[in-house]
């Protein structure tokens, strides 16, 4: 749920940007030119598998549809002659499972958290990634999986109101309501919360996983009266704008928007932010066939396109080469820019693949007690 929700969130940000006139729609020609500059293996492979009429990419709707469709989809069509349809109805795990089990897969590629890709893969609901088509070298190691690849990044960063919090707070301060009074906000759907709680409780980043869930929940419980939980990204932003919270564990894309909208009153720290690798999966028996699903993913690995898409709705590129193409400002905002990533703690995708449902239920139980 995390990655799709996050994807949707990026779209909301971009939508508000567009409405406020801060950005304009990048034209197809720019993107097509960018593609032309990068060598791709499509023309050679065209003869191998029957060419489908279309590729259906599933994400969380709104303008992620436009960004994906215009910046990845149109050049792909120009290159291969295969149309790209972006379906914004939301590839939640349960939805993919339902679709595949009913023998009615309609998606060729879906946005997904990497841990979710492992979970779905174990359940036999995904096509394997074909690494003769998808290039491992275009993905930051080690985030390539049997049933999915890293496609983009997001992060849960400690975001704070500089007028109410002196200095740069840490997770220890986040959980110390005596030292820094005021409400905090965390995600209702857990990711990032337990990691932050355990780091605050003195667990070293390298010893974080496997998580000591009970200890983390106890830490959260210790300041429960001071926490409000956000569920949608826009809500986390509103809490800061309304001055209802002084600190928050929120998606860093929201933090950067807040920083801009409040002229720096609200900002964030990369230190010990919880970075989340997310990406793309191919549901089992996808209509265009596994090979074309893989080709579509391979196409989206292009670093220039990834930077374009980041400009379009904030999705942080997975291809390490993309960092070199960024402006300094883009680098500053990018989760996986080396100087930012080294300060963060990356969530263990294998741990979450194994434990996500149990721990989420324990967390929901604890926070709604």
């Amino acid at each position, binding site marked *: 749920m995390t990655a799709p929700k996050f994807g949707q969130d990026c779209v909301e940000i971009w939508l508000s940007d567009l409405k406020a006139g801060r950005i304009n729609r990048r034209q197809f020609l720019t993107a097509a030119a960018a593609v032309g500059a990068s060598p791709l293996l499509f023309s050679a492979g065209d003869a191998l598998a029957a060419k489908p009429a279309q590729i259906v990419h599933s994400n969380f709707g709104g303008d992620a549809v436009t960004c994906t469709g215009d910046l990845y989809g149109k050049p792909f069509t120009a290159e291969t002659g295969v149309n790209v349809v972006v379906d914004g109805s939301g590839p939640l795990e*349960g939805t993919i*499972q339902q679709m595949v089990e009913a023998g009615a897969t309609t998606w060729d590629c879906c946005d997904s958290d990497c841990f979710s890709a492992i979970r779905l893969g174990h359940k036999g609901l995904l096509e394997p990634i074909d690494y003769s088509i998808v290039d491992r070298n275009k993905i930051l190691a080690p985030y390539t999986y049997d049933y999915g690849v890293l496609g983009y990044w997001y992060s849960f960063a400690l975001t704070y109101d500089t007028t109410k919090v002196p200095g740069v707070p840490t997770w220890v301060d986040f959980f110390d309501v005596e030292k820094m009074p005021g409400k905090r906000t965390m995600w209702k759907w857990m990711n990032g919360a337990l990691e932050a709680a355990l780091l605050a409780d003195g667990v070293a980043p390298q010893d974080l996983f496997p998580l000591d869930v009970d200890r983390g929940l106890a830490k959260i419980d210790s300041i429960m009266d001071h926490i*409000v*939980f956000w*569920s949608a990204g826009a809500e986390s932003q509103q809490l800061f704008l309304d*001055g209802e919270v002084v600190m928050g564990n929120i998606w860093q894309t929201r933090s950067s928007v807040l920083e801009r909208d409040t002229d720096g009153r609200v900002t964030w720290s990369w230190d010990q932010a919880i970075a989340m690798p997310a990406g793309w999966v191919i549901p089992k028996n996808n209509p265009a066939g596994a090979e074309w699903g893989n080709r579509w993913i391979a196409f989206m690995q292009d670093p220039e396109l990834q930077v374009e898409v980041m400009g379009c709705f904030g999705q942080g590129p997975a291809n390490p080469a993309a960092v070199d193409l960024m402006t300094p400002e883009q680098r500053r905002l990018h989760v996986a820019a080396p100087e930012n990533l080294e300060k963060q703690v990356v969530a263990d995708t294998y741990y979450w693949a194994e434990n996500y*449902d149990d721990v*989420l239920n324990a967390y*929901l139980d604890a926070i*709604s007690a």
Partner: protein
Amino acid sequence: MTASAGSVAIGTGGTPRIAVSPYAVLILPLLALLLALYAYPLVKVLWISFSDPELGFGNYEKLITATGIRRMLWTTFKVCIITTSFSMLFGYIVAYAMAHVADRHRLWMMLFVLVPFWVSVLARAFSWTTLLGDKGIVNTELTDWGLIEHPIPMMRNQLGVLIGMVHYMVPYAVLPLYAAMRGIDPRVVSAARGLGAGPFEAFWRVFLPLSLPGIIAAGVLVFILTLGFFVTPAILGGGKTLMIAEYISAQILTTARWGVGSMCAVVLLALVFLLLGIMSRFVDLRSLFGAK
């Protein structure tokens, strides 16, 4: 189900003497459609609740063994009972007033009941966030008047959920109550007064008992509807009020534990049928749902 006096007992009790109207054939296609699109998926949900992840009563055991599920059910129950009580109280007052004012005023009152009734639940929940927040209109005004020093936490907690839900449910209480009250002959209250009862006694011993079927019908209706609340707790609860609808959604879509999610859905459905069964002992369901 037992039909109350005055209703025609078609199809109840299975007596062979009942003549089926030839026009009944006309509803057969609809019936078939309902069976295919409604009954079949429901049976499937029932089946999943017993078969995922393995065959047996494992999911239902969780009702007893899993403290998280028990607590979630308890929260749901508690919130629904409180919501129903307050909705009924406010609804009764409004309906009583509506039944007793002049026609012109009644029209206006009806309008003010129906307009919020038609507004989307999402819009209403978000409207409350602008009123109830720490810097919302209510807290700002109270602070400006010097009545309070610190904002009162009125949302992102259970209070917020209750305010939002009661507000949503009051029209659902008013409409059946009003219908029931309109059916009460006003002369019986006058007669009670004429026989020496005070205004309160006439209400307490005559009007209130006569409106009892309406109270039960509205109460059960409101309670059933509150059981399925999803949006309001999600928006106004600050993540701390987890009710059954949201729990089911999380199990089906997020953690993909369909067995547990289906089990909860079955429990919810069984509870609704149980309540409808209880209600049918007091009122004619067909009249309540507008079938006659």
